[in-house]
């Protein structure tokens, strides 16, 4: 019968071109393209990826990007001494930033100073349509070296008609949290305009201490000055974004101003409540894309990003006794302590050209180049007189700056890749990145992966990738600082990654994914030494596996859960420190009525062992549990309530050795958030 149908179909097709079938064919192509862009066909992507959708996360009581990343298999959340939050993938060098990249609507937003994106970790989930988390360096971001992983946020600027065009939200919560924002989409003919804004603030603090002086690092004489108390983690953050597109042109602008309490102190000394750091991040990117002669695709991008770090802080207590920075033999007593205003302004200018070619049967070739110029254009260092002769403020911006004012890096990356569809079920992806920058000569980074669709329900993927992480500004150019000493001769960290993944699909949205990985890291950077100087100290091997399940238990019952295991050794043969070997996460929803839902979200993060020279006990693991309630009115209004950490678990981030003896607290007990969201 099927054969007969096929013969009739073939004969008929040669005689007729039906407008209905043409329309159907066009729809299939359009939606296949949309599925490709929006990663609905995630299982067929040539890397290991987890995808989370904003509308589902909202129902779960997830509030921010940070909350969402905490759900990802193999990803743990850490904090540094400023209370700056960052994710660590698969235990990859947890004491430094820059291991991962964040893209918002395709724009790389990592700041230059620390090569991190702390200022976006509190981005409200209401403005996030989708989060794609690629683990490992196998991402297809031509022109950017993903290292331990990359995160792609898509906002509601991408709208194919499946979501509301506009949304407004307001929130109130514990520790005086308040926030609100909106996004709107307007169409005027071909012109599309997306605008987005949010503001949020809180008065968060956590009990902390005693601080680093207690360790005797700055001498026994200073030990009595050690303090314990509330570490300021308060936040004031607003962000404005706009995306305008017309035909192939697109303009994206974002201005994020992020002001935060000084956390645990710039020098690991507990700061007063009002001390802060300010980390604005602004960018503008223009792009143009066009299909040429059906087989070519051209894409041009250029952009500029400004980011800076300012710190306004009393960074040492009254009575501190230390050697003079100008004459180590002379002892200086800072009777009124030390105050400092530090500011470093950076800019990045970049351009990228990309050409895709589909003219060869079953091949899709892409090649192009990305060039960037990163530089520091302003350094301010004003502190209490370092000679100790007066308590006056002195401008050391010229004579004793905290960052090299001439810091600069020029980079160029050339890339070439091919997606080869060997058959309908087997696809190969292979490519290279060739990078050169001011600090290093050409480095060749190849990638190879395959996706094999065994049948409609089972998929197997495997990949090998080599990549690098260029040192951040902080690691390269920090100077005149006793707790962080930059090193302009640092080499990039390198990784060789082998990964494999098997996916079984139970249905449209249900799957189980099992992944294994082996990572060979080289030239790892840290400053854990007596001089606190950043050095390429060691190599390490990481290996492990991740299991991820999304399954309807019965017709209405969905379970999402994941478990990850990571282990390894460094080149000295010692086990890895500050890494949770075991992590498990999951969530569930219950729709009590069509309008009312209840959610439960849980995370387990295992114990973390210390460095061999760190005599503290291992950092204990924790289990947290969040509850969420959501009520949807028929007019599009949603009322939501979320209770975080309902069992009042103690959550701590590891503090570096010889700093705070007690680790950094993440939150003060339980937290509650009430939100009102209106989608139009």
């Amino acid at each position, binding site marked *: 019968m099927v054969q007969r149908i096929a013969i009739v179909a073939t004969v*008929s097709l040669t005689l007729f071109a039906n407008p209905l079938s043409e329309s159907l064919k066009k729809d299939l192509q359009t939606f296949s393209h949309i599925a490709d862009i929006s990663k609905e066909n995630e299982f067929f992507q040539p890397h290991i990826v987890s995808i989370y959708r904003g509308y589902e996360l909202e129902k779960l009581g997830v509030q921010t990007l940070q909350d969402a990343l905490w759900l990802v298999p193999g990803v743990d959340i850490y904090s540094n001494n400023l209370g700056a939050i960052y994710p660590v993938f698969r235990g990859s060098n947890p004491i430094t930033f820059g291991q991962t990249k964040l893209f918002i609507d395709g724009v790389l937003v990592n700041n230059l100073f620390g090569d991190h994106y702390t200022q976006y970790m509190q981005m409200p989930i209401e403005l996030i349509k989708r989060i794609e988390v690629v683990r490992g360096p196998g991402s297809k971001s031509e022109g950017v070296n993903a290292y331990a992983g990359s995160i792609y946020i898509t906002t509601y600027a991408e709208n194919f008609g499946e979501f509301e065009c506009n949304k407004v939200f307001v929130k109130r919560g514990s520790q005086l949290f308040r926030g609100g924002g909106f996004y709107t989409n307007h169409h005027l003919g071909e012109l599309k305009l997306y605008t987005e804004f949010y503001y949020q603030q809180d008065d968060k603090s956590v009990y902390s201490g005693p601080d680093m002086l207690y360790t005797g690092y700055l001498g026994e004489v200073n030990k009595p000055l050690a303090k314990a108390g509330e570490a300021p983690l308060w936040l004031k953050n607003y962000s404005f974004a706009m995306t305008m597109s017309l035909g192939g042109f697109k303009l994206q602008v974002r201005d994020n101003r992020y002001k935060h309490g000084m956390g645990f102190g710039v020098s690991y000394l507990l700061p007063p409540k009002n001390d802060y750091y300010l980390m604005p991040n602004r960018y503008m990117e223009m792009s143009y894309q066009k299909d040429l002669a059906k087989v070519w695709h051209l894409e041009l991008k250029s952009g500029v990003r400004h980011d800076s770090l300012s710190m306004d802080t009393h960074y040492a207590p009254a009575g501190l006794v230390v050697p003079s920075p100008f004459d180590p033999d002379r002892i200086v007593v800072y009777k009124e302590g030390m105050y400092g205003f530090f500011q470093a302004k950076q800019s990045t200018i970049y351009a990228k050209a990309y050409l895709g070619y589909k003219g060869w049967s079953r091949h899709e070739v892409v090649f192009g180049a990305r060039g960037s110029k990163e530089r520091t254009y302003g350094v301010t260092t004003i502190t209490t007189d370092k000679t100790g002769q007066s308590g006056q403020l002195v401008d050391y911006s010229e004579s004793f700056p905290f960052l090299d004012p001439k810091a600069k890096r020029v980079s160029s990356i050339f890339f070439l890749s091919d997606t080869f569809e060997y058959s309908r079920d087997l696809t190969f992806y292979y490519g290279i990145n060739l990078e050169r920058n001011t600090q290093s000569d050409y480095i060749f980074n190849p990638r190879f992966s395959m996706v094999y669709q065994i049948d409609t329900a089972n998929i197997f993927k495997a990949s090998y990738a080599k990549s690098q992480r260029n040192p951040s500004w902080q690691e390269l150019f920090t100077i005149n600082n006793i707790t962080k000493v930059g090193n302009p001769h640092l080499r990039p960290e390198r990784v060789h990654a082998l990964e494999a993944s098997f996916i079984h699909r139970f249905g449209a949205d249900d799957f189980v994914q099992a992944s294994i990985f082996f990572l060979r890291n080289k030239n790892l950077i840290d400053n854990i030494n007596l001089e606190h100087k950043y050095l390429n100290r060691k190599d390490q091997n990481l290996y492990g596996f991740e299991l991820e399940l999304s399954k309807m238990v019965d*017709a209405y019952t969905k379970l999402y859960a994941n478990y990850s295991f990571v282990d390894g050794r460094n080149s000295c043969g010692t086990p890895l420190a500050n890494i949770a070997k075991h992590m498990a996460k999951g969530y569930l929803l219950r729709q009590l009525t069509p309008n009312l839902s209840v959610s439960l979200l849980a995370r387990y993060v295992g114990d973390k062992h210390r460095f061999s020279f760190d005599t503290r006990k291992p950092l204990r693991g924790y289990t947290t549990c969040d509850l969420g309630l959501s009520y949807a009115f028929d007019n599009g209004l949603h009322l939501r309530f979320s209770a975080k950490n309902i069992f009042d678990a103690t959550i701590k981030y590891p503090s570096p050795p010889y700093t705070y003896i007690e680790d950094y607290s993440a939150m003060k007990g339980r937290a509650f958030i009430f939100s009102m969201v209106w989608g139009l």
Partner: protein
Amino acid sequence: MRQIVLLVLLFCFAQAYEYNKLLLRTQSSLYPKLIVMDRKLSSHINDRRIDLYILVTSIDWLYGRYIKEQLDKLFPKGVGGYILRTKVVNFSTFLADKEKSADAIYLLKAKEEILEKVAKKIEGKNIYSFTYEKEDLLFGFLFNVSIEKEVVIYINKRVLLRNDFEFMPELYQMARFIEP
């Protein structure tokens, strides 16, 4: 103790389904067009009006309404010269109805026994049936659109043969057959 409480809570709270909105949007755009590709449509529908029922359990009522809004927005003037009238109907209401009131049905998630009953009810009655979930075709429904590497139309061959449908040949070239 906390872990035990947590596990108990996990299993107590297990009740919900989050539909993929892009898949719903894709299916909503394609399903009405598939109906009018039947050359014998006019012999099954006399009033030039296609009554498409979106079958839901009560808990999925809002999703049903979402699909109805999408369909009404996408096909305000109907499809292929036919008026399209959409209605969100509870599975139990549909099963209790003795008359053939729907020309086409679009089924969201439901328990297996409910899907079996619906399949039995429409068997051989020339009712166009569409599912959200590809696997549900096997209960005895005609069409599914799925997002895989690309968007794929699936046709249940057994259901096709047991009804009096004659789809345009181009459709068979675009679709894949499922043979239970």
